[in-house]
């Protein structure tokens, strides 16, 4: 017994720098020390120091009374945190690795002009101010609800009659969601999902750049009707230019005491596509890694901190305003969305002027989007389009000239309305592989069919090995926890016939 082991003496923990301490103390003073402050505190450190060091992470963990592992999970599951990456990077400096940018600039370009989530689109001009929005009648419905609580029923009826559906892809009726939330009772929470993570999609960004108060108004109305006193605005971290815009907007609402009993918190995402999946989003807000949770229970029953939670994306909130009589305004292009038949497409790829295109109705073919986007890039012929983002549908050039309504009748899903135009010389298989690899990179990693299946399919598509992928596609869509994996499976199943035809 008592053999001497040469075990190293316990090491002391790395200590944060004074500057890191100041950043953390300031963030914690503002955000508090409960677990839900974790991600935003880490992003504050990232903002100030370019990244989060181990010492800073341990310091935050101690203040928030988390174990090192609990904090580390969140730091490493959130690419935006730049854990242990301390080289200072400007927001927008990050090269985009989406299929669009890679297609246009190639894989080895050092060109920093194409930036993540921006898709060569410059920010629109000044957002409509609080005063201008008020002058145009903004927030009157909020005031009405506060002054005449009885008007709640009337507005709720209008929401029901408007038949507005969610715009995040699934198309669930808004009114039904609200009913579910209100039936759950308790202390509900409203979340504005502004983590627009789908590749080549910038419609929510366009809305926020132009009319942020309209979204806040709709969120406040939803809160007042459902009895929520807390609103979270969950912003895609890459939309850093919108962060001050929204801070100002929220501040203006607070200063004007529009709805003094409702607290609006602005939070930024962890920087991954999966952060926008609503249960992952809720996990992220609670201070856990952004990993989806199995449904049921649905967030409307058991969401943020176990409270009934209403999550809509920016576009859904924006469109909701039609229910209480908001009208289209010529100066505000995105207000065209108040027309229920309108679709805001995000057009990118081999076009001269990529950008948002508002289309009314479904009678036109998708090819008309090309005109709005300034036509094809020089030297390219139309090869086809990718509709609906990373797990979307690749359509061939001739289908671009078919009436949209007919394509939809044949099963096309518009998803988030992203349209990536590609040329006849662009390889559809390569595009498909890029899309698959986006999903392989951006999934949360927790469930096996999605984590491994998306890797396998990306590799197989890149290699052109298309045999035996059918039951992989089926297993991914059958067995994945959340919509990302399921749609990745459906995408694979859908793209296989197209690629085999090509062979």
């Amino acid at each position, binding site marked *: 017994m008592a053999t001497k082991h040469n075990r190293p003496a316990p090491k002391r923990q790395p200590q944060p720098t004074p500057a890191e301490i100041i950043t953390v103390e300031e963030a914690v003073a503002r955000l508090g020390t409960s677990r839900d402050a974790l991600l935003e505190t880490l992003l504050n450190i990232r903002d100030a120091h370019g990244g989060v060091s181990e010492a800073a992470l341990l310091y935050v963990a101690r203040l928030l009374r*988390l174990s090192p592992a*609990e904090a580390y999970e969140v730091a490493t599951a959130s690419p935006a945190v730049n854990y242990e990456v301390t080289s200072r990077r400007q927001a927008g400096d990050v090269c985009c690795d989406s299929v669009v940018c890679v297609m246009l600039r190639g894989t080895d370009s050092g060109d920093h002009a194409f930036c993540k989530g921006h898709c060569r689109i410059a920010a629109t001009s000044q957002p409509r101010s609080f005063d201008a929005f008020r002058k145009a009648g903004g927030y009157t419905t909020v005031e009405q609800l506060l002054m005449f609580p009885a008007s709640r029923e009337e507005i709720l009826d209008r929401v029901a009659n408007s038949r507005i559906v969610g715009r995040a892809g699934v198309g669930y009726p808004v009114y039904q969601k609200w009913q579910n939330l209100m039936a759950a009772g308790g202390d509900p929470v409203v979340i504005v999902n502004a983590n627009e993570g789908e590749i080549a999609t910038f419609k929510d960004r366009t809305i926020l750049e132009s009319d942020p108060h309209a979204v806040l108004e709709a969120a406040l109305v939803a809160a007042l009707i459902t009895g929520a006193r807390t609103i979270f605005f969950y912003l895609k971290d890459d939309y850093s230019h919108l962060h001050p815009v929204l801070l100002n907007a929220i501040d203006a609402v607070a200063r004007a005491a529009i709805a003094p009993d409702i607290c609006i918190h602005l939070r930024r995402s962890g920087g*991954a596509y999966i952060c926008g999946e609503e249960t992952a989003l809720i996990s992220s807000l609670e201070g856990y890694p952004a990993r989806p949770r199995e449904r049921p229970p649905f967030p409307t029953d058991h969401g943020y901190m176990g409270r009934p939670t209403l999550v809509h994306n920016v576009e859904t909130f924006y469109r909701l305003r039609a229910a209480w009589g908001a009208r289209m305004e010529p100066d505000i292009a995105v207000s065209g969305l108040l027309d229920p038949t309108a679709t805001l497409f995000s057009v990118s790829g081999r076009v001269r002027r990529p950008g948002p295109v508002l289309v009314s109705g479904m009678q036109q073919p998708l090819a008309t989007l090309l005109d709005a986007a300034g036509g094809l890039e020089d030297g390219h012929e139309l090869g086809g389009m990718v509709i609906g983002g990373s797990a979307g549908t690749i359509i061939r050039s001739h289908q671009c000239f078919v009436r949209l309504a007919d394509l939809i009748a044949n099963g096309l899903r518009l998803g988030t309305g992203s349209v990536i135009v590609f040329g006849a010389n662009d390889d559809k298989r390569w595009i498909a592989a890029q899309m698959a690899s986006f999903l392989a990179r951006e999934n949360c990693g927790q469930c096996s*069919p999605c984590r491994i299946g998306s890797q396998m399919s990306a590799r197989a598509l890149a290699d052109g090995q298309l045999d035996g992928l059918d039951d992989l596609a089926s297993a991914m869509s*059958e067995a994945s926890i959340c919509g990302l994996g399921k749609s990745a499976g459906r995408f694979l199943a859908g793209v296989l016939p197209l690629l085999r035809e090509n062979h």
Partner: protein
Amino acid sequence: MSVVTAVIDGISISAKKGTSVLRAAQAAGLNLPYLCACEREGYKPIAACRTCLVEVGGRDELVPACRQPVEHDMVVYSESERAVQTRRVVVELLSSEMSAEAVHRHSESRFQKLISRVEADATRFGRRADTAEPDRRHPGIVVDSDACIRCGLCRSACQDVQVNSVIALAGHGDGIHVTFDTGKTMAESNCVTCGECAQVCPTGAIKQAALATDTPAKIDHSSETVCPFCSVGCRVNLNIANDRVVYAEGADGPANHGRLCVKGRFGFDYLRHPDRLTVPLIRRDDAPKDPSHNLHGADILKLFRPATWDEALDRAATGFRELRDSLGGDSLAVLGSAKGSNEDAYILQKAARTAFRTAHIDHCTRLCSSVPPLAEATGFSAVTIPIEQIAFADVALMVGSNPDVNHPVGASVIKNAVRHGTKLILVDPYQQSLSRLATHYLQLSPGTDVALLSAMTRVVTSEGLYDADFVRQRLEGFDELLERIEPYTPDVAAAVCGVSAETIVQAARLFAKASAAMCFWGMGASQHVHGADNIRAVIAFALVCGQVGRPGAGLHPLRGQNNVQGSCDAGLGPSYLPGYRPIVEEQRALFEGLWGTSLPEGPGLSTIEIMNAARARRVKGLYVVGGNPSMANPDLAATREALAKLDHLVVQDIFPTETAAFADVILPAAALAERSGTVTNTDRIVQLVEPVLPPPGQAREDWTITSSIAERLGVSSLGHTHESIFDEMASVVPVLNGLSWSKLKAERHVRYPIHPAEAMTDVSSGFDAGLQDSLFAEAFPCGKARISPLHGLQPIEPPDAEFPLILVTGRVREHWHTGSMTRRADVLDALAPEALVHVNSADFDRLGLSAEQMVSVETRRGVISARPVADEKLQAGVIWMAMSFVESAVNELTINKLDNYTRVPEYKFCSARIVSA
């Protein structure tokens, strides 16, 4: 409880509402495939592996059986083509996550069996490249990341079940991976080596080192015993090959539900350690007892020669008989151990009283003594409420206890409750790991508990937050209490304790306003000359708040050794007879009738007093069964002097302890895992154990050796069988009323009192607890509870210019008491190989210490050498050492001063200094 019925694969089942399809199917004998689920308590469905997906009638999507509750009239198809096909592809995908070498290393794993079962093509999607050899840097657990399928079960084990929160599932997408703390290796991390992750890992990626060898031993058999290492009473399954324990697993015991801690997982090497005593030994004539000798291990054996049992027993008994017959039984003393069984304890006290004819009988519980003040207040000598009831508590107050180290599995229950909303008020000078979870952490200065708790009590009485009805109807001594606490305003206490007045007020209010609150306390409260006062102050606070007798409301002194409760119940103490019967004429008559002999008068001496009496030559013969005063007692030089002065010392143990160095005769005993018997845990659960291994060599069960000595002292038939001994004990110990060996044999474990009302009636009246775990809803065994006055002592040796530091002693997670068992376990000794003297970080720097340079730690009683370590969790001016290291035995330094009520030594406070070598 509502029951739902459903059909799974054509078989009708009924299950409690809320039961998962997976569990309901298992209960019906259908073994659905699964990987990342675990049926044990605390595991929530992860549903990440997706291998348990089933088809459910009426549902569009496949659902995970581990997560889906059975619903009424649900029809489940686990073997539909769709489910089978999906499952197979999922398993094939998972299989691609393991490297070929890793598959080879873990061919017997649960995952490999699943691959065969679902007829998956294991290499269809290729294999991960071999990247690394398994990480063997941790002494007890091997991490083989090439075998990891990232199912997350280990994370759940670490974060949800044991709540150690060391394992992380870091990263995202394909980069998601299992890691420790902030990306450390397991060996570098804060891992506490509970081994829960290794027990549940389905692939072998995390595996106990004993199993992660090229040629793992083939297990001959495995069976259960109760872990010997603390009072939680975990059931443990020992897997045996070639007469040795290869590895231990948590078994589904009433207290642990399959969990273990590092000692229970890795502590069983001692059973077959070469140092085990296997033959009786008699001291050689040429080996005089020298108090300056401080021998260990094999060196001790050189002083002895082997003997036959007959010769050794004769020699042992003769020494005692001569002293008894010439000087009277008063010259003899008996020290037992709380590590034995109830039967050992009962027979030992019976032998002491009837054959040795001495009242000087005690055991190591004396050194903890957390319960006597509770008995003083309530008339009951056990916890009023079991640990698990904390799940029903809104608030828990913990004073001077570090369960994460000393009762780790109990701590996992506490941590789970805190995670689910119980608010913890932690009172401890050391910023222990639970402080992270505490709502209020009160880091008081050592030895100031009374002031703190008095102030908290004063807050609730002065603010009218106390339970006036409870105080009026069920409490005595309230007015005197009010008078006593009057000076302790929060400000006064703040100045004394170093805790802010605001925190004191908030904590007191939180506790008083709770609809149910529990109190825990431990050695940090009791091991002071004012230990009883500390505990009295806790009890008074709880009682005036009426926090007793409801679910989640009660008093729980966290007891020390595995059979503290049972040894005390059995009467292994100097101040009461079995069943806590006072030594009065009427009760003595009861036993005199039962045992057919007269009993010695009056209370005898306690553990430390026995040693003091030996030094004064008043006690001349001592029988030590399982104890090790030569490491455990304070001021070891004085203890060795006492032992050397004895005319006759018989030591009965499993190892040649430091105490045995002074023995005339050493008798080899069987360990707990080598015999039958019963043990009683801190939660009042009596558990039956049966031998897992035979005793080595000629070692025998303690009670049979004791009986043989008694027989030679003229008292035969102390006990015949385990059954008859337990049943006799149950017949005289009121709390055991209604318990019998046969009942235990049938039920394996029973919580007492099983008839609370009857249990108490023959000791006292007015007891009507009702059949529930939280006792005393209506009345206490003594009728009204008594708030006792305090004795008012202060720490006996405050720091001064010469010895400016406060030395506090305790234990480390890896070692048990004097280390005789755990230091002989390879993994435990590798994890904690040496004594460290913990020094506050600022003091460490101020004193110019280095972890590379040994220092001398000195008090007025002795000097030891130890490695210093900076510890920011300690207060300035305080140093801390564990008691388990024989080469740096901290009890050389501690002070031999006792609480005059509990007779416990002041282990937790004396003045000391550090001198650089």
